């Protein structure tokens, strides 16, 4: 989806280093939203595509205006609604209760806490790519495309030629997989692009951008 989340190369956002930007978060509710979001996934309380593709559906102006973890609240709510776990209006009703002084309920479940920490230790590596179409050193070109849904092929690389740097392993194409559609696992590559091919001659000495791309995104160059 060619949304505002696809930021590589955009102008106008200002400085990277700002007061406070060193911190992972600034308010106590932020890591709790992070944890809550994780539980929505591990306890399968949500539906539809995962948190990331869901956030990409945000209205672009809202996306830019929202803070990072506000976007996570948004995607958690949408996913919970799509599963019928909550219905629209329930969060607002709870906000009213809390606003008028009601205590937030507290409930402990040691087994759930343990299960959540165990899920965070799970490691599932990509299968090795035994029959990849391209090998290290091959020249490839990123296909031109305008996918309506989730994709991991950023706009800035489309149509640009690069060199296969490394073959990583096999993975399902997210463009289909995040919507639950059948797709065979395919090789994922690191592709090296010269800065001049991506951006033209710039002010900086030449540099290299390495982007991880699924085989479906590439054609021989």
């Amino acid at each position: 989806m060619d949304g505002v989340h696809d930021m590589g190369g955009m102008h106008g956002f200002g400085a990277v280093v700002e007061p406070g930007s060193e911190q992972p978060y600034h308010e106590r509710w932020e890591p709790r939203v992070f944890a809550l979001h994780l539980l929505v996934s591990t306890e399968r309380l949500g539906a539809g595509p995962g948190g990331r593709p869901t956030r990409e559906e945000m209205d672009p102006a809202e996306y830019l205006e929202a803070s990072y973890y506000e976007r996570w609240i948004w995607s958690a709510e949408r996913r919970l609604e799509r599963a019928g776990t909550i219905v629209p209006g329930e969060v607002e009703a709870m906000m009213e209760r809390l606003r008028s002084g009601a205590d937030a309920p507290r409930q402990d479940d040691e087994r759930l806490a343990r299960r959540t920490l165990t899920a965070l230790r799970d490691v599932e590596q990509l299968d090795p790519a035994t029959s990849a179409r391209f090998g290290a050193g091959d020249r490839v070109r990123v296909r031109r495309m305008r996918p309506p849904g989730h994709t991991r092929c950023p706009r800035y690389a489309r149509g640009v030629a690069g060199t296969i740097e490394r073959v990583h392993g096999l993975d399902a194409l997210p463009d289909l997989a995040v919507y639950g559609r059948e797709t065979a696992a395919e090789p994922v590559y690191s592709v090296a692009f010269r800065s001049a091919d991506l951006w033209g001659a710039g002010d900086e000495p030449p540099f290299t951008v390495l982007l991880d791309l699924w085989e479906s995104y590439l054609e021989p160059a």
Partner: protein
Amino acid sequence: MSDHDHGHHHPREASEVELRARALEALLVEKGLVSTDAIDAVVELYENDVGPQNGARVVARAWVDPAYRERLLEHGTEAIAELGFGGTEGENMVVVANEPRVHNMVTCTLCSCYPWPVLGLPPTWYKSPPYRARAVAEPRAVLTEFGLELPDHVEVRVWDSSAEIRYLVLPMRPAGTDGWSEEQLAEIVTRDCMIGTAVPVAT
């Protein structure tokens, strides 16, 4: 603008967002779907146990043990697991080494992908539009903001982690650290050194 009926107002007050976050948690706790202690446990995990101190130990080990360094660059996930680190967002680790003529830095232009098991949760700048927009297009300008000026002959290599592979930069061991213990070495390896927006200095 179909989602404007979900209770967002412009501009949103910080307290409104906080209230919304608390309400969402309260709602799921009240329904018995999540528990307060499970949320506490995740928060505490990333506050106390999982952070850049893990990655620093990996780097320090690679500096003192050439065989480990080789394993780390060849099979990142397994070598990192030797020190007990691994899990979500660290399933497919690739470690890229800085060299006298190569400087690596990592970004995620589409999202905020980051190797949690070795670095914890990303700093705000890593997740924010300026870094996501500029790291792949003007890396030296970005590095200058971090106070890092590289000679022109150094090739900057920017890794945009657009798939499920997560990257860790292995910085060069700085001069003046001969004879340092692994623990001493780990102390000078900051988070930014392992993202590639800084280099370690002997202090």
